[in-house]
């Protein structure tokens, strides 16, 4: 087993500006891996590389044992970006049908999955609505539904729950856990601490560097903190002292 995601010594820079610096990350089994860090820390760049739509300046990124980008692997990855990336002038259903066909789902499968994913994000009754009439939170959920359509083995979610109310957010995280239990690996970026607590493992990113990785409980114990936030501060501060 070569693991699900293997990021090795990846660096990325635009001119003099360093976005990622010698960063490594591995996901060996289906788990929820949370990337926690402030905005501008390089989380999005990192997940884009794993999704195959950005290339590192140095280092390697592989998914399911093969280097990215790889068109065959892309069919097994579900990617949800920070932008909702929806066609506003189409209905939710038309959006779903379009993306479902890109991933090669046949007609029967397509209809079945559309209903399933829209139930998952509690939007089933809004299928025929135009996306431009959706609220911000609804668009976010539709975007998530699209990422789930083709039952990917690896889900890459960039801040999936921004603008979604707490009740629904909890329901969505419950869903993530059941997806994981069914064998889906989930890589999620967040800067919300209570979401971080629900991840199986966390990677703390600051200024393009992975300052710590481990289970939330373990990170707290090691730093003698009661919250992840305190642990982050500890590692961030220690990073500075070095």
């Amino acid at each position, binding site marked *: 087993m070569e693991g699900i995601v293997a990021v090795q010594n990846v660096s990325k820079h635009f001119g003099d500006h360093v976005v990622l610096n010698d960063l490594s990350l591995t996901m060996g089994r289906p788990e929820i891996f949370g990337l926690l860090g402030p905005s501008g820390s390089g989380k999005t760049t990192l997940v884009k590389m794993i*999704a*195959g*739509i950005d*290339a590192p300046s140095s280092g390697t990124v592989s998914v399911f044992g093969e280097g990215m*980008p*790889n*068109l*065959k692997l*892309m*069919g097994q*990855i579900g*990617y949800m*970006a*920070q*932008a*909702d*990336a*929806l*066609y*506003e002038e189409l209905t939710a259903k038309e959006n779903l049908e379009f*993306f479902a066909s*890109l*991933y*090669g789902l046949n007609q029967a499968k397509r209809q079945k999955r559309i209903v399933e994913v829209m139930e998952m994000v509690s939007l089933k009754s809004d299928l025929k609505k135009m996306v431009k009439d959706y609220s911000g939170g609804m668009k976010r959920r539709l975007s998530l539904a*699209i990422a789930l359509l083709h039952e990917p083995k690896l889900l890459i979610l960039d801040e999936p729950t921004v603008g979604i109310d707490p009740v629904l957010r909890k329901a969505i995280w419950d869903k993530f856990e059941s997806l994981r239990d069914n064998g889906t690996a989930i890589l999620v970026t967040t800067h919300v601490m209570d979401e971080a607590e629900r991840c199986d493992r966390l990677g703390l990113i600051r200024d393009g560097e992975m300052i710590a990785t481990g289970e939330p409980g373990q990170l707290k114990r090691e730093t003698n903190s009661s919250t992840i936030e305190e642990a982050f501060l500890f590692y961030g501060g220690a990073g500075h002292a070095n």
Partner: protein
Amino acid sequence: MRIRAIVIRILQQFFRDKRTLALMLLAPLLILTMLWLVFNGKDYKPSIAAIDLPSSFIAKLNENDVKLKTLPYKDAMVELKEGKLDAVISHSNRELQIKLEGSDPTVNKETINKIQETMKELSPEKTQAKLSISYLYGSKDMSSFDNFGPVLLGFFAFFFVFLIAGVAFLRERTRGTLERLMASPLKRWEIVIGYVIGFGVFTTFQSAIIASYAIYVLDMLMNGSFIYVLIITLLLSLTALTLGTLLSSFANNELQMMQFIPLVVVPQIFFSGLFNLETISPWVRWIGPLTPLYYAADALRDVMIRGKGWSGIATDICMLIGFSLLFMLLNVVALKKHRRI
């Protein structure tokens, strides 16, 4: 004070967007220069073949600033058909016979004027020799609209498809859907072909509507086959589509897409044959053959005015297909910016 703050902010924004600034300042200069070069060209010198005419007449005609050739009647008619000559003058029964190429009313008038001037100078009191004018293409009823109509037909097809396709592709990028497409197993060339076919359907309708309106409603001169007109406008639209999507990757927003109009679209009009290409200053004349509209306008005129068939437009058609293929290829390469494979 608040107004001052607004003024300063607007000026700052302007200086941030160097392209808009350059467009506001330089584009008008560029267009003015082009117009000047186009209109300040030389006077049009008609090319005329004289057949068996008295030497006194030929000498006088030469003084009147025309390009005169003497060659056998048969050869002259061939050159007239190819558009190398504007008129052939011959005589029979004390009558001067002028055969005009005929597709450009302005050229027709200029040519007849020169010949009439020459005749007046030769025998000022009375014009005893009669003039008999006939047309190879068109007629004396042909209006200027008939002449530049085919060019406008092509231009409008080009202009709107260019803009709409460009903005559509730009939105795909700015709204993040292009990124989502790139994160799927979709190949880069599939996106380009998808756009070509999707817009191709739309442009087929558009070409059909524009062409039928011009021909059947506005009664534009139409001597050739309607299906050729459709093929030419459709192929021109494809170059507009592929060029629009290509250039959209160099624009950050809709406004910057609009900025390509004076730079890419408007200059094409100057070299499309709306103005006589032979009077355009040689400094800019070379631009014409680099623009798709140049070939489309030529082909449309061949079909609509001169009634030519496939053999007359084949070269133009090939050039249009070539432009489309080139732009499509460049599109596929430009998408590499978003995904390496």
